[in-house]
């Protein structure tokens, strides 16, 4: 009897962890597909889009996540097939140095100007 109870307990625990894992996979799937751009309805994310392509991508991402692939690997795969364009979050590479750094630069320049204006009054 006890063995059966333990077996059931183990089964439940195993199931729980796989349920939690499935939950995490679903969450990650949502995160990834929200970051992918649909090639057919080019103004929507794959997550929001209902086109055949988007549905296929969602299934593909789910399969790859189940296989244990990481977010980065999935992005890399899709980038290889469709180009960097498919990612909504622009990567930080030689194409996008200016993109990410310019606004920060503007912020610093603005701060410097104000700082200079305020410093002057101390003297």
């Amino acid at each position: 009897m006890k063995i059966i109870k333990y077996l059931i307990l183990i089964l439940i625990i195993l199931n729980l962890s796989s349920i939690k894992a499935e939950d995490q996979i679903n969450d990650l799937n949502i995160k990834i597909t929200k970051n992918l751009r649909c090639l057919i309805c080019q103004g929507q994310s794959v997550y929001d889009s209902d086109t055949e392509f988007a549905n296929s991508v969602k299934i593909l991402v789910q399969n790859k996540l189940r296989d244990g692939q990481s977010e980065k690997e999935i992005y890399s795969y899709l980038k290889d097939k469709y180009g960097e364009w498919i990612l909504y979050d622009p990567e930080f590479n030689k194409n996008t140095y200016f993109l990410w750094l310019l606004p920060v630069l503007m912020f610093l320049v603005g701060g410097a100007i104000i700082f200079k204006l305020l410093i002057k009054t101390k003297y």
Partner: protein
Amino acid sequence: MTSTIGFYSLTFGLVCSFLIIFFSVKNFNNSQFFDNKILSITFLQFFFVTISFFSLILAFVYSDFSNETVFNHSHTTKPLFYKISGTWGNHEGSLLLWLLVLTFFIFVFLLKSQKQKKEYRILTSLIQQVIIIGFFFFLIKTSNPFNYIFPVPAQGLGLNPILQDPALAIHPPILYLGYVGSSIIFSSALAATTLNYVSKDWAKHIKQWVLVSWIFLTLGILLGSIWAYYELGWGGFWFWDPVENVSLMPWLALTTLLHCILVLEKKLLLSSWAIILSIATFTLSMSGTFLVRSGILNSVHTFANDPERGLYILIFLFCLIFLSLFIFFFFFKFEKKKKNLFWLSKETAILINNWFMMYFLSVVLIGTIYPIFLEVFSSEKISIGPPFYNKLIIPFLVPFLLAMAIGPKLKWIKSNFENKKHLILFFIISLLLSILIIRNLDISFLLNTVLVTSAFYLFFITSRDFFVKGFKRLSQNIAHFGFSLLILSILFNNIFSTEVISNLKLGETLENENFKIKFENIKEINEYNYKSIKGKFTVQDLNGSNEIMYPELRIYNQPNIVTSEADIKTNLLTDKFMTMNYIQNQDYFNIRYQVKPFMLWIWLSVLLICFGGLISFIKKYEG
């Protein structure tokens, strides 16, 4: 027939421009008083454009398909309301609307500026006419709403059904009131610069225009978001889509300008910066027009693309920019005396506001146009979407909100720390409250807590000011309070929204830990210009409360488009949102059900912000 009237009215309006310029130049030097002929011809110009606009409306209402624009964008089975709003739901008609508002606003400006100096009024009117002439030529040469087609088709091509929505019907007119208002500010700023009139008096005078423009621009953006939420069916209201960004950029510049004018009204500070912002706001509006109508951007909302039109607007835009820069650098009298600024003062607070706003503006601007330049210079194509904007804007919101709370409390010139205990007290309350809320949730703790804390802080500080300060600075208080409510609503909406997506067959039930959804039945109804397929779903949530949702699929006949109409149940606390989509070749439907708390508060808070501006506008007329 209406097309002929419409077209000739336009040309008469253009002639008026030249007459106005002629009389303005003459009047500039010859007399002490403003020549009222200028006012009369300005009215005449507005009158002609109104006739032209009404002719176009009539052509749409009577489905006059000899008019190419009507043929391209209308259909006899369209409901009357949308026949009328279809007038400005296309490129040519919307440009005619621009002209209508342009000629109207300059007329109102001349009417309302009778106490101002003659030279200032003339010069503002002159610069405005340059803009108006540009639009007249653009319209007549590349975007004529009165082109004939022969033989006359029996039926039109129809208006895209997602544009047949009440919010979208009034969204362009409201938005254009904002854009055109900024053109008046532009002309006025350049006129004031030329005449060395950038002073407190000028600020007091132009403030009303800044407020009007700002209120309409805010409302216009709100309407666009409401339309996106109710009509587009993805459950979101802002996607950082290029066309959305294009309306946000002038708004950011205009809000910054508003704050600068409030300073300039009281002290002669930041005057050069106010002029730059005035130039920038209208430049951004025009750039927006360029980006949206030229086909250079990839977006769901762009008009049909036409590079010839794009080139024209581009050249026009840059002429305006060079003109304004020339006037600024040639005429502006920079102050030789450096102002003294104490670090803990209202002036500094406004500077900090400007600093952050310009940063936000640069993020949106760079994010929107970077792909264009990258493709031109390296042939690489990338996308820039919500993750980029969120990463760069959200962290900076925290100090921004805090500054918004403390800034208004600082005195002009110099402040000190007495009697400010409540500032610290509210901070602690906000922090504790946020921790309490965020603690048990499965989300990024630090970022969300800090964000919610700073939003709560602004919320509490402004709420307290209602009771303590009363009607003093009411408009600022309401607007800032509205902004804190907006951020709180968006944050909580984001944090507490739930969604389930699934495929369901007729009669099937989906059950998970949060809801039970049953696909009850489907009804097919033939409507006036579409076939409706409505699903009935009963949704039972954890509390046992039942909701019946009717998401719909519409198959339009002309143009042949299928749209998915979400069923949205709104109440004060939360929205329930369901869409149904058809899956190719299968007998089940794809169902999305979302529970979205505080949606209504997002809209209400923006209305509150507008209301704050409105109070400031009305106050001027009382005191």
